[in-house]
C-alpha cells in the first residue's frame, strides 16, 4: 500500500522528484494528492485517508494539530522563495518602477487571503510603497499553480510566484528573486496525520523530508532550508 501524501500545489513539480528519490532509497511507494492547502485541509477534516500533509504554510497544519487530526506538532520543512517572473525580457533590475509603467498591464498575484505566496507578494509591494498604485493591474490566482499558468501562457505580463517554477517550466522565463527581507518568511509545515497511526512508513517519509538529501532537492528548486 502506497503512502498517501497530501501535497500543497506549489510542490506539484518537486514532489515527484522527492517521491522517486524516497522510493529508490526505501522501496516505499507514495501517491501524492495535489491540491490547494485549504482544500486538502477540508478533505482531511472530513475523513480523507491521507497519511502525511505537506502544506504551503504553517497555519493550516497548526489548525489540524489544534483540532487533533495529527500525530504531532507541525514542523517547518522548507521556506518558499518569492520571485517576480515573466515570459518577456522586461528587465527586472528595478522591478518596482517597471510595474508602474505602461509596459505592464496585468500582474498575477496569488489570492493573498488564501495563498501564502500572495500574502508575501503584497507585503513586499507594500514595503516598496506601490501596492495601491498597482492594485488596478492585479489579477488573482486561486493558488500558486494558477498564477504559474497565467505567467507561462502569457496571459499576464508579470507575476509573483515561487522560484520552483523556474525549474519546472519548459519555456524560457525571465525572473528576479525578491529580497526575502521585504516579506515575512513563507514557512511551509508538515504533519503526520491520524490516518497513519502505527504506519512506520509515514514516519520514514517524514524523516526523509527533513533529511539532508531532501534539503538538497528543495534548495535546487529554490526553497530556503535551514
Amino acid at each position, binding site marked *: 500500500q502506497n503512502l498517501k501524501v497530501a501535497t500543497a500545489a506549489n510542490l*506539484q513539480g518537486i514532489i515527484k522528484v522527492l517521491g522517486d528519490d524516497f522510493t529508490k532509497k526505501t522501496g516505499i511507494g507514495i501517491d501524492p494528492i495535489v*491540491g490547494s492547502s485549504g482544500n486538502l485541509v477540508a478533505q482531511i477534516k472530513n*475523513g*480523507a*485517508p491521507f497519511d502525511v500533509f505537506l502544506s504551503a504554510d504553517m497555519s493550516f497544519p497548526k489548525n489540524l494539530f489544534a483540532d487533533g487530526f495529527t500525530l504531532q506538532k507541525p514542523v517547518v520543512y522548507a521556506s518558499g522563495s518569492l520571485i517576480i517572473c515573466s515570459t518577456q525580457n522586461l528587465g527586472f533590475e528595478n522591478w518596482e518602477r517597471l510595474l508602474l509603467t505602461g509596459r505592464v498591464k496585468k500582474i498575477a498575484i496569488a489570492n493573498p487571503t488564501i495563498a501564502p505566496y500572495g500574502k508575501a507578494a503584497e507585503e513586499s509591494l507594500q514595503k516598496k510603497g506601490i501596492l495601491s498604485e498597482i492594485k488596478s493591474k492585479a489579477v488573482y490566482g486561486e493558488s500558486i499553480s494558477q498564477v504559474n499558468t497565467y505567467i507561462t501562457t502569457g496571459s499576464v505580463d508579470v507575476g509573483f510566484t515561487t522560484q520552483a517554477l523556474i525549474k*519546472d517550466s*519548459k519555456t524560457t522565463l525571465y525572473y528576479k528573486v525578491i529580497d526575502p527581507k521585504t516579506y515575512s518568511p513563507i514557512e511551509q509545515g508538515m504533519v503526520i496525520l491520524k490516518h497513519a497511526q502505527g504506519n512506520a512508513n509515514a514516519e520514514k517519509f517524514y524523516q526523509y523530508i527533513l533529511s539532508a538529501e531532501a534539503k538538497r532537492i528543495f534548495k535546487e528548486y529554490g526553497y530556503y532550508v535551514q
Partner: protein
Amino acid sequence: MDLSPIWLTLRLASITTLLLLLVGLPLAWWLSKGRSIFKIILEAIITMPLVLPPSVLGFYLLIAFSPQHGVGKWLLNTFNIQFVFSFQGLVLASVIYSMPFMIGPIKSALQQLPQSLAQASYTLGKSERETFLRVLLPNIKPSLLTAMVLTFAHTLGEFGVVLMIGGNIPNVTRVASIAVYDSVENMDYSAANVYSLILFTITFVMVIGVFIFNKAQAKSPLE
C-alpha cells in the same frame, strides 16, 4: 500515459446515466402530470444542484457524508458504506448533480404531447406505466436522447464536486477531469491535451452516433 482516469470516468458517466434513467424517467413523468404546488417545489429542489457552484455542492456533500459525524458516521457504522473518497460517493454526487439534465428536457417534452395519446391508450386497457413506456416515451425520443447525451457529457466533464469529495485517489476517484486539471497545474500541457482529446473524441463519436441513429428514425417529408 496513465489511461485509468479515462476508464474510471467512462464507468462513472455510464453508471450515472443509467441510474438517472431509472430514477429520472418515472420522476419526469410524474412531474409532467398535473401540477400541485408540492410538485413545483420538488422540481425547484431538483433544479438546485445546477445553480450551486460544483465546489460548493461538493463541500456540502463532504460535510453531510463525513464519517466523523451524523449521517456519514451512521452509514459507516451500520452498512460500512463510505460516500466520501469512494467511487460510490462519486456516483451519488453525479446523480444529484446531473438530475436536472435528465428530468428537464423529458418533462417538458411530455407536457407538449397531446393528451389524446394517453387517453387512447387507456381505453385500450393499458396501465399508466405501459402507456408511458410504449406510447409516450417513444414519441419524445429526440428529447430523451438529448437528455441522455446532456447527462452523460455533463458527468464526463464534472470536476468541482469530484475535486471536493473525491480526494484524487488513483483508480478510485481520480477521474479524467481531475487528471487533466493536474496536468495543467503541473504545466504538463501535452498530457492535458491528450486527456482532453480522448474525452473530446469519445463524446464526439457518441454524439454523432446518437444523431445518426436519430436521423435513421427521423420523419421524412412526403417527397
